[in-house]
């Protein structure tokens, strides 16, 4: 079990979803078949933006990858190994995830130093060794300094007293502190004010660029989806109805995406 979860970190890994089926509430009146034979391949080092209306399956897609929801049928291959039946926590040893809610990525009752110490130990056993290594505080400070949020001077401040943007920046840093194969961003700027969201997106782009980590970002902000990343996917009713990468993606503009988005929304009566 350990061997597969702690494969040598190569900085990037391919992720393949093959023939995914997911039924919600099977057998009841509320039965909802979200994914029927869904396929997606995310190549090494790709930064994929996923957009789509509510209920299109974009957050479910992330939950399926992370193991937060189980699939009925299909395979999830990480670098060729099927992780589709692996427990969520085992899978997440190689995944960094940032949520929409800033409080999910950090522990509010603990200090920045404690939070970072926890994150820094990911992949290693949480044993009876010292929880907070003061010697590493300097290194953590250096990681916080480029954020320009003044967090480096608040190492012993409880995270609960930070602003949403500060917490989200910390969550992003913590999710990528240790080597991960995939970075999963679940509308991670949606709960922030526009200016803070801008800062967090800039930070995201920098981290993804530096770490060359395969990234999937779900966003409601079409402009971010167009501006960042090298692939854009639009989800609708459990299908990827638009998938542009490379040159094609670079030529896409926000108006065009907005047009398609509005058209499908109208069709659905939204």
């Amino acid at each position, binding site marked *: 079990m350990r061997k597969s979860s702690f494969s040598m970190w190569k900085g990037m890994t391919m992720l393949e979803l093959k023939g995914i089926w997911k039924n919600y509430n099977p057998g009841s009146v509320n039965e909802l078949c979200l994914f029927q034979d869904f396929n997606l391949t995310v190549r090494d080092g790709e930064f994929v933006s996923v957009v789509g209306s509510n209920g299109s399956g974009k957050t479910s897609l992330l939950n399926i990858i992370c193991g937060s929801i189980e699939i009925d049928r299909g395979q999830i291959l990480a670098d060729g190994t099927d992780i589709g039946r692996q427990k969520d*926590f085992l899978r997440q040893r190689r995944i960094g995830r940032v949520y929409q809610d800033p409080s999910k990525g950090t522990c*509010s*009752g603990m200090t920045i130093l404690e939070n970072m110490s*926890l994150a820094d130990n990911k992949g290693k056993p949480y044993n*009876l060794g*010292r*929880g907070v290594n003061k010697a590493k505080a300097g290194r953590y400070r250096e990681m916080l300094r480029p954020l320009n949020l003044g967090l480096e001077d608040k190492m012993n401040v409880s995270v609960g007293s930070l602003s949403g943007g500060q917490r989200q920046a910390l969550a992003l840093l913590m999710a990528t502190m240790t080597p991960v194969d995939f970075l999963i961003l679940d509308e991670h700027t949606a709960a922030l004010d526009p200016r803070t969201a801008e800062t967090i997106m800039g930070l995201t782009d920098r981290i993804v660029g530096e770490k060359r980590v395969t990234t999937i970002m779900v966003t409601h902000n079409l402009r971010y989806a167009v501006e960042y990343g090298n692939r854009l996917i639009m989800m609708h009713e459990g299908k990827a109805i638009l998938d542009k990468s490379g040159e094609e993606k670079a030529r896409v503009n926000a108006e065009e995406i907005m047009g398609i988005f509005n058209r499908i929304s109208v069709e659905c009566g939204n």
Partner: protein
Amino acid sequence: MALILSVLEQGMIYGILALGVYITYKILDFPDLTVDGSFPFGAALTVRLITMGLPPVVTLPAAFLGGALAGACTGLIHVKLKVRDLLSGIIMMTALYTINLWVAGAGYVAIFNQDTIFENGVVNGVFPGAAGRVKTAAVIFLITLLSKLLLDWYMSTKSGLLLRAVGDNDTIVTSLGVDKGLVKIVGLSIANGLVSLGGCIYAQQQRSFEISIGTGAVVIGLASVIMGTSLFRKVTAPRVTSSVVIGSVLYKGCVALAMFAGIDANAIKLITAVLFLIILVISMDRRKNPGGGLT
């Protein structure tokens, strides 16, 4: 003097119980009713081992391990069988009632003539003559202090940090690649180990086991924790455990005062409940501070 000594002794014994309740209530955010069963479980194990003729010091680790096992069962019921936290504790508490009767052999067992951690050659040698009056309090103080220091040490380890994280935000524990269920089971084990250790010392101080000592144990623990953490709100991690023990002593002091004022001894549980309610209401607005006593 005798009254003060008695309050100190009882307060410190229940202080160990309160340390356990502190873990479940404040750190894990788990309302654990196992306590009403694991406190007498420690006492039952103790009288059994002592009547078997084992050296009294053995009862301390034995009671801790026994309580830890009970806590692990509550954790397994909650995590593996997906039973709600409150119900998991109630199930174990109820099961332990019978187990306690089996282990102790009866609803009331006295250990008047046997050696205890307070009455043995070594302790009597250290506290000769008149000093013997404080020996019980002194021994309890040592054990309580040791329990507190060990808990402080544990909370500063990686494992302890993770325990705090699981109560704070269990999503992050999964993100860190750790089974959050396992962390909760470990937390419940340590908590009930401490509660049971409290029961072990209580039985030896009272020189008897009584099946009803568990009734309301969790309320006493909660009252102590809330009182301690509310009174000393600004203290940080290692000292919060001291606050909890002090809270327990103060709580026992309040009960003693009520008794001293002439309230009927049969009313003790009613006083306990009313006192707990008062403490709860007084501390309520203060508890809005995120992170509670740990910040």
